[in-house]
């Protein structure tokens, strides 16, 4: 176990008094900001980036790790204590969590979320420490053609699998790629899309894009729809759990972790699917299924663990391949670049000390969160009552300050406003923001690798499919590149394939889709009698969704109107 030695070194770096203090500040500030309604983990990291600017990279990363887990934890506190769900990853936690809170059980709900986050975060970080070097070893063997194909795959996965509308996902990606094109082309030295503006020569800073889209865009969007009457906050005492609560929580924590980590680690896995899978699994396995829909502790413990484990999982591709798979990872990558660190397969080799210090501080941050958050919960609950004008004015204020501090130039503020309006429009028109950010970050790198692949093959298009073996001088196809392209084709053609499969196997698939659909509706429709039609056809939906890589699309299609209506009729 070479990783173990590196990890110990990481702890030595992370455990100096200064770095511990930075981790502590990160965790506290991250939680405080993440708790605020309307501020998800991605925006928390984006808004707090400037705080890390004055630090050297190691200290900055350690603080960022604290902000990251703090922001995650803060988000789930909000969703339990407010009667409106916030970001999509904590929607499932909010279902039972908020019901528990309303039933006077806010304390055990917060406690099971906190301990579950700790368990999942710790196991997830351990898995990260194990898998990151493994994936890196694989990643450094990749040449330009393979890397090009893998990054294209991650584009398609983030765009076509997540979200409800593929078309709008691709629109977002294309706009992101356009933003990524701005600047002087590094190979030929020609200006692209700079319109003669000298400040655009270096391109648009990714941090400015992230802050603009996540913070300013969100602030303006909420301002346009601000609730007249502030959402109701459930009062809370000091969180704690009874022996019974522990007994009912520990298995869901572990199962949630098992769902969350793998989904987080693959491109386009996200947190939505594993939290949902965890929820339906717990509902099925629970000894108290009648409590689901009225506030069952398993329904908080499992999804919350899945959410955190998924967050740890996203760090695997982020650190080992430089691929962002969710919005928070995208902002973290932007942060890395702003510290002058080049993300990608060589990161773990070149910046080994830094990465292991980051991983070690994830453990430390996680522990600090647990110690701090149980006693501090009433304070966080009070933050939820912050007057909304202050909250959203504060977002614009800190966003401007942060964007200005990147380069000390007011030109960035003009970009920030433009990007904020873009983010506003995207929210209005249902265009997801994640593909845009991924496009901005990966676009230039995809282009670079593609051009490099074709340089190696002197312009022959098959240079994208493999390379010349140095030893034999013969052209060898790359299995990795071809597999990646094959998956891309399957994902893109999935709606067609799905339609075809449905024609061939009408009843079974319809039943499966119907099951998932029913499940979603009974769970989200809180007035429906709990339990419902649960035991009728339990197998298809779960087996279809849990293992296979097409699971996300399977869920996705339940939204398509034709399939849902027909299958519902079938079931009734």
């Amino acid at each position: 176990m070479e990783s173990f030695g590196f990890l110990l070194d990481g702890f030595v770096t992370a455990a100096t008094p200064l770095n511990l203090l930075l981790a502590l500040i990160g965790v506290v500030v991250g939680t405080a900001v993440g708790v605020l309604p309307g501020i998800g983990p991605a925006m928390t990291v984006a808004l707090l980036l400037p705080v890390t600017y004055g630090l050297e990279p190691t200290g900055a990363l350690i603080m960022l790790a604290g902000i990251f887990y703090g922001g995650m934890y803060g988000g789930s506190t909000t969703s339990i204590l407010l009667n409106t769900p916030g970001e999509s990853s904590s929607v499932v936690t909010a279902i039972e969590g908020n019901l528990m809170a309303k039933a006077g059980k806010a304390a055990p709900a917060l406690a099971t979320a906190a301990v579950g986050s700790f368990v999942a975060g710790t196991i997830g970080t351990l898995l990260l420490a194990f898998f990151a070097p493994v994936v890196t070893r694989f990643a450094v063997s990749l040449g330009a053609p393979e890397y090009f194909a893998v990054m294209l795959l991650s584009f398609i996965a983030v765009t076509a699998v997540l979200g409800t509308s593929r078309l709008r996902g691709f629109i977002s990606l294309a706009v992101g790629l356009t933003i990524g094109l701005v600047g002087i082309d590094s190979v030929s030295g020609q200006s692209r899309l700079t319109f003669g503006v000298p400040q655009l020569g270096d391109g648009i800073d990714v941090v400015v894009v992230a802050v603009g889209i996540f913070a300013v865009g969100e602030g303006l969007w909420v301002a346009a729809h601000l609730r007249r009457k502030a959402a109701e906050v459930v009062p809370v005492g000091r969180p704690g759990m009874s022996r019974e609560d522990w007994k009912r929580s520990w298995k869901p924590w572990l199962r949630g972790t098992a769902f969350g980590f793998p989904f987080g680690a693959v491109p386009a896995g996200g947190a939505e699917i594993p939290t949902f899978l965890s929820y339906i699994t717990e509902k099925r396995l629970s000894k108290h299924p009648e409590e689901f829909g009225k506030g069952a502790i398993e329904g908080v413990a499992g999804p919350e663990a899945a959410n955190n484990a998924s967050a740890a999982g996203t760090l695997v591709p982020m650190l080992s391949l430089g691929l962002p798979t969710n919005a928070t990872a995208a902002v973290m990558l932007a942060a890395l670049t702003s510290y002058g660190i080049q993300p990608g397969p060589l990161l773990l080799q070149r910046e080994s000390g830094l990465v292991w210090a980051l991983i070690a501080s994830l453990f430390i941050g996680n522990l600090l969160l647990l110690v701090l958050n149980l006693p501090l919960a009433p304070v966080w609950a009070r933050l939820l009552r912050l007057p909304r004008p202050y909250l959203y004015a504060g977002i614009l204020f800190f966003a401007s300050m942060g964007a200005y501090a990147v380069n000390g130039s007011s030109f960035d503020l003009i970009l920030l406003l433009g990007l904020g309006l873009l983010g506003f429009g995207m929210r209005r028109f249902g265009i997801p923001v994640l593909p845009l950010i991924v496009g901005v970050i990966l676009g230039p790198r995809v282009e670079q690798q593609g051009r490099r692949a074709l340089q190696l093959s002197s312009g022959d298009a098959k240079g994208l499919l493999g390379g010349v073996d140095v030893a034999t001088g013969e052209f060898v196809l790359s299995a990795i590149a071809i597999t990646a392209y094959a998956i891309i084709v399957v994902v893109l053609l999935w709606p067609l394939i799905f339609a075809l499969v449905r024609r061939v196997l009408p009843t079974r698939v319809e039943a499966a889709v119907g099951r998932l659909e029913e499940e979603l509706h009974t769970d989200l429709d809180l007035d429906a009698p709990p339990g419902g039609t649960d035991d009728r056809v339990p197998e298809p939906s779960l087996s279809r969704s849990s293992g296979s890589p097409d699971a996300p699309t399977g869920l996705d299609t339940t939204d398509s109107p034709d399939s849902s209506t027909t299958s519902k009729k079938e079931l009734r």
Partner: protein
Amino acid sequence: MSTAPSVAQPAAAGPAAGPRRDLAQVGVCAFLLVLGVVVTVQALELTNQTSIDPLGARAVPLVVGIALVVLAVVLLVAVLRGSRPEQEAGEDVDLQQRMDLRTVLLLVGVFAANIALIDLLGWVISGSLLFYGSVIALGSRHFVRDLAVAVVMALVTFYGFAIGLGVGLPAGILQGIL
């Protein structure tokens, strides 16, 4: 891609969705079309040195530009066939009420004022105005308290960043006083 529009209408399954089209989306099509044309035209002005760089600086912008134009057309078709966007929800977002464009425009105005003033007046003054203006635009009516909060926030961030973190925010006309 041709099947995308049918996947793109989750709202149709819900009870709230009516047959009404959301024609404001045509504006998105226009935006994408203009952007696509600009990117394509710019790409065509680039030159390629094929010997050392076969793909060149032109290929990717060309692909992106054409993709934007194609997406604009596909979205237009989808919109005309009744595709509706799923607007983003959130803790403080009430999608039932009409969009309050007045507040948004006020905020944009305040933000733009900050851009114009930050280098001249410095962060302490322009940041205070940014916060104060935003709070009032968002509906707060505690004029004195809000101003005090704004000034304190601007001062704290200015000194916090300058002393604690070594990141300089502009002092502007208050140079020498602060």
